[in-house]
């Protein structure tokens, strides 16, 4: 009986400690730009021997920017690994002061951070006005069902893409038109002319979202002519159309477009069917 009580007490102590840890596992420095910048400096002084520069792979340690598993870890788990090392691996205890470790944690998390995690500065409300107004973004893009559908849905753009990706999409022409957004003009064997976006195509079929926002499914023998346009419908000169402040405000608005779902449990397996 005594053994049982001791075991029970140990369990209780374990769960109490675990509960406390869960409550404390957020980074006290948050994900501030300053913490990330300082963290990068500390990281590149202390961690690159094994992990490589800027989150790339090193000689002995994994690339921290490459795998989703690091982004999934709670802040406290990354902190523990840096502070104590990882038993059974080459990962040593860092010997860094706690606040420096939290900065490193902020930096490691930023390597895989999406725009919505990055707290992009700017006037969000004015950015929203630009989106629906003079930016004319909604002619082709949708947010939560409002807007045009020829361009990609932006309802979760901040939750899916990095800040850099969104900024580049607005200011740099992509090397190639993304699949699913290829502008085309087709002439059917009946002589009907249609323009729109090829959602998909191959030698034998073409799936068209036409300029009237209708899906049209064709086999190639139903088409007399298909003209592939060389330029994306997406302009890439918003750094010239807008002032720097306006562009930043638009980016701040877009970065906050994220779909909030259920909270991920600490050890969830994302690929579980």
């Amino acid at each position, binding site marked *: 009986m005594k053994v049982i009580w001791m075991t029970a007490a140990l369990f209780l102590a374990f769960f109490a400690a675990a509960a406390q840890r869960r409550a404390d596992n957020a980074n006290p420095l948050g994900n501030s730009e300053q913490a990330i910048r300082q963290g990068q400096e500390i990281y590149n002084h202390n961690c690159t021997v094994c992990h490589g520069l800027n989150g790339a792979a090193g000689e002995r340690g994994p690339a921290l920017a490459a795998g989703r598993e690091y982004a999934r870890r709670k802040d406290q788990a990354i902190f523990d690994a840096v502070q104590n090392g990882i038993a059974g691996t080459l990962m040593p205890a860092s010997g860094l002061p706690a606040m420096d470790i939290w900065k490193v944690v902020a930096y490691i998390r930023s390597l895989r951070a999406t725009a919505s995690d990055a707290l992009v500065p700017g006037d969000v409300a004015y950015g929203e006005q630009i989106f629906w107004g003079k930016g004319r973004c909604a002619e082709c893009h949708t947010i939560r069902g409002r807007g045009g559908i020829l361009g990609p849905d932006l309802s979760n753009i901040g939750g899916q893409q990095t800040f850099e990706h969104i900024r580049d999409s607005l200011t740099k022409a992509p090397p190639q038109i993304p699949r699913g957004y290829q502008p085309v003009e087709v002439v059917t064997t009946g002589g009907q002319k249609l323009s729109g976006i090829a959602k998909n195509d191959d030698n034998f*079929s073409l799936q068209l979202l036409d300029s009237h926002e209708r899906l049209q499914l064709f086999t190639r023998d139903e088409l007399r002519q298909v003209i592939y346009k060389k330029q994306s419908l997406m302009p890439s000169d918003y750094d010239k159309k807008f002032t720097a402040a306006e562009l930043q405000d638009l980016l701040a608005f877009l970065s906050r477009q994220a779909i909030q779902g259920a909270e991920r449990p600490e050890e969830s397996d994302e690929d579980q069917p």
Partner: protein
Amino acid sequence: MITFSISLCLLAVGLSPAIAQVTYQDLLKASPHNWLTYSGSFSSQRHSLLKQINQSNVQVLVPTWIFHVPKADHLESVPIVVDGVMYLTQPNEVYALDGRTGRVIWQYRHQPALGKGPNRGVAVYGNRVYFTTPDAYLVSLDARTGNFLWQSKIAEFKDGFWSPAAPLMLNGKIIAGVAPGDYGMNGFLAAYDASTGERLWRWDAIPKPGEPGSETWADDSWKSGGGDTWLTGSFDPELNLVYWGIGNPAPDFNGELRKGDNLYTECMVALDADTGRLKWYFQFTPHDTADWDAVEIPVLVDAPFQGKMRKLLVQADRNGFYYVLDRTNGKFLHGAPFVQSVNWAKGLTPEGRPILAPGVEPTLKGTKICPSTSGATNWMSPAYNPDTGLYYVAALEGCGINTKSQEKFRPGGFPFYATGYVESPAEPRQLYIRALDLTTGKLAWEFKQIGSTEYGAGLLSTAGGLIFAGCDQGIFTALDAKTGRPLWHFNTGQAITASPITYSFKGRQYVAVEAGSNVLAFALLDEAKSAGRAKDKAGLDDPHVVRQ
């Protein structure tokens, strides 16, 4: 080029979309060219009026395309088809495919991708697609692009809920259910506004103290009573009643922990579609201790019963009995076993209550119980052909050895079975396709699925006089609806655990089925076209030369 871009964008603004608009009238009419609901129509008969593919030509049915669903394991969704566009799911994902070619039009991934599968498919309405997720959300997408519109939380994922059933769309109102009762969470059905996702009503499958039915739960056992709603129901628009089968009580195998009949587990319930109020219920297995969820698809048929036209609801239940009910009031009309492996009940009373065989319940050492917990049938859909008057069902013979234990409910999504079962080695399992007379349940014919000891593949009936059936061997078979004689078969290469559908587009009928991680579509070999193309393009007479 820039001019083109701008003009195209401008054209897009202000124009209303013209295709894939599914109306309530479309859902009522259930045109055979489309497959608009999980069971093909509100009545869930799974009988299509298409007959381009029929008994005279099914021998030249050929695969037209195969789509592999990345990372899929055993798909269980029923594809929905609207004007040639096919929508299908695996957990957390929706695909829109070109129904003629299998080419992807769009893909949507719900994130974070949490929880468990399976997922059984979408519902459609207007220009929208709806599906439920392993973290118990109802999600609405634009049917043309997969663009996100809204999502509503059905239940708390952190409590252990998920939502596998294809939601059922009514008139601008969509109904979703939850799983798992096996974890002791109490099930419910909820209706949502199809435009906004706002919840309109909720019906709880386990009554709270003081409510009718609460007297069927001893002590506090109702608190972890189960009764989930994991398979799509049916709808009678005239009666305005939604019919839905309710899952097992929890803990599954130890009834001592929940004495009483345990309403409304193991019931067919009829709910008012506007309010969610219970109109009637019929309990197939009171105080179930074998995990025989009564979720099997309710099939609605208007037919003469003993000389009088009746609105019937028929169900082959997991407990081994076939039931005929009056769907206006839930009255039991007839019941009979549709498998030979039934030892738990000697028969049914005039009210449809089982006459229990003594001592056939789980014990510490194990008791043989037939059918096994896998059930005489399960989620695989049955079908009804009004031309033959026959009801078709995938039936599994076999028994289990069931045991019980003491177990306490733990909140947060943990199994609450109070032990379980193993298949009885003395009665090896065997899968059959059986055709039953609608009103008597009398066996008209059976087709033995040789080598098949697992279930999962549902049935499709067509006006071409065919029954399409799959099995765990991966063989997809067309049977003569009148005799059960096999007329055609195809080895899909993977176990089939979903129900087939049919549709037509631009004059050609297709039959589609999911097998393992693939979706396959079949159509008649177009010999004339193949020969013509070969001559045109290659100058050859060989009809098998394909144009390049």
